[in-house]
């Protein structure tokens, strides 16, 4: 879904960060802008600066130059003011899950924010129901599978009913079923609650499933493209220059075109099915 | 064996109770002394280094029950106040695994934290002079372990009268127990020579300890060298260089 309200809640203007080993990441090129209700993905190869950008949004890093505004404040100085509005799912969820059991971990943030226990419990219950975590809520966290841990981390992030959800490579290491579940959960949250997403990805095939606005990042933080996935993938037939592969569907339909079967350039399975079906029906007539 | 984890039931009540009181007092003072923000920031590191020490104690290196302590390297990385709290946590968790007694957590903490605290200060002191990580780590570890073993011997020696009582207390107690008349006579005979022999205890502990100090010293040195190569910032040596 796309809500073109044009109310930007995140704006990053050419920031520079230097790591202790002197690696310099300069997130420049285009301004990084996120509007309310959008599902924004940042696609780029490993080490191009995607996580650095997210850490700046969370106030975990202080930029050397440039500016970062999230909900109108500089997160490196005033993150406390906006932290209840932001949920985070980190790349390594193991270090994010801190409660002894699933239920405790989901209660972690509400109790730390001083929410009264009964209300905190009802918030936890509601998120447990919405993510179908009832069967594992009493489990000790180190006995969870990778997919379950991601869901628990997501539940811990959603319990405070954030307006913005930041996810760092949420699909890495997940099996196909868990991946599909997570995509579905995220899309429902976006549609029903209007939660804005910013996520980093390197799985090109997943982009069309979960993205309204796509940023391409390469080199050391070069934000070079912004647009809808179909626009970007349409414009860039060769993604190798970004150290990325084309989506599988793009490759397939390109191959079909070479064989004289031009169905267009679908990016999602359902679109592809419709296109092929239409052609099939037309040919039958 | 660089140290022993004192078990339950060996030391007199007054001794382990004093150990608890001193350890709790020191722990409470440190919790108050360390700034709240500093504690919040360093809690995960405290937990992680405590976990590393627990895992070190759980991995037996050679089949003589030898395991590494990692207290000195943890002390160097955590600093003198947090290492005390870490050893308190480690001793409680180890005691739950039957590794060291529950009643002697206080004493075990005091003894083990000597290694961490002394190791930290010796490491920095030696580094100021030698400027080489490997010999400095070895020296600091070896001396810290030697002192902690001496402290342990000191603690054990304080219980002399209690051991005497245990040796001579066959007929007292809540339940009377007689193995046989012959045995009782044998005990009577032993009682004559049944004196506490701390010298024998020390003569067993020190050579065993020496092997332990060497092994732990070597392993800590190699670990220190590895960390120095990969993450020198963790050793906080900038102030010694400048």
């Amino acid at each position, binding site marked *: 879904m796309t809500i073109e309200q044009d109310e930007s809640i995140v704006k990053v203007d050419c920031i520079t960060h230097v790591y202790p080993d002197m690696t310099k990441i300069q997130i420049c090129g285009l301004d990084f802008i996120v509007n309310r209700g959008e599902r924004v993905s940042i696609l780029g190869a490993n080490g191009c600066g995607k996580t650095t950008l997210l850490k700046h949004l969370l106030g975990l890093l202080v930029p050397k130059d440039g500016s970062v505004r999230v909900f109108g404040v500089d997160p490196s100085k005033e993150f406390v003011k906006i932290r209840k509005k932001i949920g985070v799912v980190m790349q390594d969820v193991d270090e994010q899950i801190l409660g002894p059991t699933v239920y405790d971990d989901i209660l972690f943030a509400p109790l730390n924010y001083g929410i009264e226990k009964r209300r905190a419990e009802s918030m936890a219950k509601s998120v447990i129901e919405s993510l179908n975590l009832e069967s594992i809520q009493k489990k000790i966290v180190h006995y969870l599978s990778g997919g379950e841990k991601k869901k628990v981390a997501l539940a811990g992030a959603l319990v405070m009913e954030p307006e913005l959800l930041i996810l760092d490579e949420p699909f890495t290491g997940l099996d196909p079923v868990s991946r599909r579940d997570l995509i579905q959960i995220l899309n429902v949250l976006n549609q029903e609650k209007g939660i804005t997403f910013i996520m980093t990805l390197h799985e090109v095939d997943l982009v069309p499933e979960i993205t309204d606005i796509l940023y391409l990042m390469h080199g050391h933080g070069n934000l070079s493209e912004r647009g809808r996935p179909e626009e970007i993938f349409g414009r860039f037939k060769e993604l190798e220059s970004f150290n990325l592969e084309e989506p599988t569907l793009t490759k397939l339909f390109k191959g079909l075109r070479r064989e004289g079967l031009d169905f267009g350039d679908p990016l999602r399975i359902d679109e592809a099915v419709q296109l092929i079906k239409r052609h099939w029906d037309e040919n039958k007539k | 064996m660089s140290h022993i984890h004192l078990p339950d039931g060996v030391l007199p009540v007054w001794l382990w109770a004093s150990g608890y009181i001193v350890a709790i007092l020191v722990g409470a003072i440190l919790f108050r002394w360390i700034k709240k923000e500093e504690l919040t920031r360093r*809690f995960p590191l405290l937990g992680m280094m405590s*976990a590393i020490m627990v895992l070190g104690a759980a991995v037996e290196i050679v089949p003589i029950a030898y395991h590494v302590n990692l207290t000195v390297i943890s002390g160097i990385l955590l600093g003198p106040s947090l290492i005390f709290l870490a050893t308190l946590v480690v001793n409680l968790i180890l005691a739950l695994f039957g590794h060291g007694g529950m009643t002697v957590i206080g004493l075990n903490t005091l003894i083990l934290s000597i290694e961490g605290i002394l190791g930290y200060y010796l490491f920095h002191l030696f580094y100021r002079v030698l400027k080489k990580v490997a010999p400095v780590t070895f020296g600091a570890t070896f001396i810290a372990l030697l002192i902690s073993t001496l402290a342990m011997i000191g603690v054990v020696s304080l219980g002399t009268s209690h051991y005497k009582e245990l040796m001579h207390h066959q007929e007292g107690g809540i339940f009377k127990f007689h193995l046989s008349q012959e045995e009782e006579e044998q005990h009577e005979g032993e009682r004559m020579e049944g004196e506490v022999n701390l010298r024998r205890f020390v003569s067993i502990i020190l050579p065993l300890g020496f092997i332990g100090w060497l092994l732990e010293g070597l392993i800590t040195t190699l670990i220190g060298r590895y960390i120095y190569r990969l993450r020198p910032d963790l050793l906080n040596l900038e102030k010694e260089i400048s």
Partner: protein
Amino acid sequence: MIQLSYLDYLAVERNSFFHRLSPEVKIIGMIFVLLAIVVLKSLFGFFLLYGILLTFFFLSRIPFRIFSLTLYPLIFAVLFIFISSFQIHFILLIFLKVLCGSIGVVLLLATTPYPLIFSTLGRVLPSPFVTALFLTYRSIFILLNILEETQHALYLRGGFQWRHPWRSLINISNAFGHLIIKGIDASEKMNESLMLRGFKNKIYYRGRS
């Protein structure tokens, strides 16, 4: 090390009468065992206590391999017999005291999940200490995976061989160095996460700190 996670697994997954007992009852029971260790003076008393604890141990369906864990403190107890003139009474007394203590704690840990033990202790211990306990336990299981992988890699790549003791010692030390660096990296990530989730020096269990 394997026993460490196995004990935890037993506490969570097994279901005996002892598993179902409340943690408060078990901890109070453990305090009584410790009291007995301090107060009892006769061998008969200790044999009786050890017999009872052994019965409890096997009634709680704890596998026999865990029993070896209760014998571990004997290694340290052996050193104490050198204090005496090797009197059988003293040796038996010391061994039984040590065995009663160790079987008691292992019984407690193998039948009670750690959050229950820590949160029960939390009623008397200061909350920062209980938080440190929770974070340490969580960290143990984060690091266990790294340690196991490193151990396997050492083994599979010939990193530990009795024929090359010096090289093996270097490899083992490097493995610990690797574990420490990974642990510190993980603690930095944990710190970020704590900050983002509003951590105020407390970990809650069932809504209690």
